[in-house]
Structures are given as C-alpha cells and as structure tokens.
C-alpha cells in the first residue's frame, strides 16, 4: 500500500510517500504507526506523540483503531490548519 506523509510528519519521516507492505499482524492504523516507529528513529520521532497524528485511508479521515485491510493509500499528518 502507498503511505503518504504531510507537513511536519513528512519532514520528520524524511519523505513524502513510499510503498510499504506491513506484516499481517499490523491490522489497524494505530498498529501501523507503532510498527513504523520501531523501524527507525525518523519514524519514531514522527509518531512520538501518536494521538496528535491524524490519519486518512483513501482520502477519508479515520481513527487509530480503523483496520487497514484493503487500503490503497494511507496518509499521516498533523492536525489541519487550513482556511
């Protein structure tokens, strides 16, 4: 699945998108953040306060307990500050 990062999450991760194939025991958005955090210090820094990071699956806002099965694109970003 494609993973995208925006704003300071993107800066901390060090890239704006990548293709990832998480192991089958990573079932939810929250578990994906935890799994990424274990991969490197950059991810750990991006997700150090997981409840601040927002997520979307296929362009729709989702909660951390949302399953990721079937997702084409998952995005992580800080709270929105548009308008």
């Amino acid at each position, binding site marked *: 699945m494609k993973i*995208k990062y*925006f*704003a*300071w999450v993107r800066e901390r991760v060090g890239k704006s998108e990548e293709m990832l194939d998480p192991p089958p025991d990573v079932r939810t958005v929250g578990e994906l953040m935890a799994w990424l955090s274990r991969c490197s210090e950059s991810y750990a820094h991006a997700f150090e306060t997981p409840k601040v990071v927002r997520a*979307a699956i296929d*362009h*729709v*806002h989702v909660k951390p307990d949302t399953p990721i099965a079937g997702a084409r694109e998952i*995005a992580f*970003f*800080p*709270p*929105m*500050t*548009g*308008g």
Partner: protein
Amino acid sequence: MKMTAIVTIRIQEEDFDTAREIAQLSKGRTDIGAVVSFSGICRGSEHGDVIGALTLEHYPGMAEAEIARHANEAMVRWPLNGLTIIHRTGRITPGENIVLVVTASSHRQAAFQAAEFLMDYLKTSAPFWKREEREGGGNWVEARAHDDEAARRWTKS
C-alpha cells in the same frame, strides 16, 4: 440539490479576484436575496512576531474530496442558490488572499450560516497545513482548540 445551484470549488496556487467571484455568483439573477463572502487574508504578524510569509501545503485529492463533501452538506442544510470555495496553496505573503467562501441564498441567515459552517470546517477538517516564515526560522502553525470548538457547534443536535 436544486438545479439552479452553482457550486464552484478550486484549489490553486494563483491569487483570485474576490469581486469577480461574488459577481459571477449573483450576476443576472433575481432569485438571490443575500450574498455573503468571507475572505481569509495572510496577516503580517502573529502575537507580535513578524510573519514574512505563509507556505500552504495540502493533500491533493483528499483536499478536493473533503471540500466537496462539506459543500454538499451545506447545500443540503441550507437553501443555497450558489456556493464558491477557493483555497490557495504555496507561498503567500502578508496582505494576500488565502481562502474565499461565497454563499448566495434567498435568505440572509442561510447565507451567513452556510459561510460560517464552511469556514469552520475548512479550518479543522480540510487537509491543508500552514508553515510560517518568522525571523530566525519557520514553524508549522498549531491547530487551535478554539477552531475545533467552532466546528463542533455544527454537529450538536
């Protein structure tokens, strides 16, 4: 949604002409009694600090989808004749436009409420992020609890 309602949504780097957008929504029509416009403009200072510019990042695809979803919700909730939403991205200097919402209706309260609803949602749900250029560096603007509260009033039953 009524056949006569015109909905325009644009996300663009270029500036826009508020006057032209208002005129396009209402010109030549005699069914519109009220037009409300909101322009969000880049300020030159925040809490006393000088702001050199803002850079607006967005999530292409999702930003359009989120705005369209809220535009549709506004059309369902209020009797609108037309609706225009424009959000800029990229680098914006003080005094320049950031965002425009224009609502047209037969009734003034519908026009006011729909414009406020859309602005509250753009502030809290549309995937845009502002980075400020300040003296000695830049920083991402933090979301304000006050904006979340403003948005929540539209979901109270």
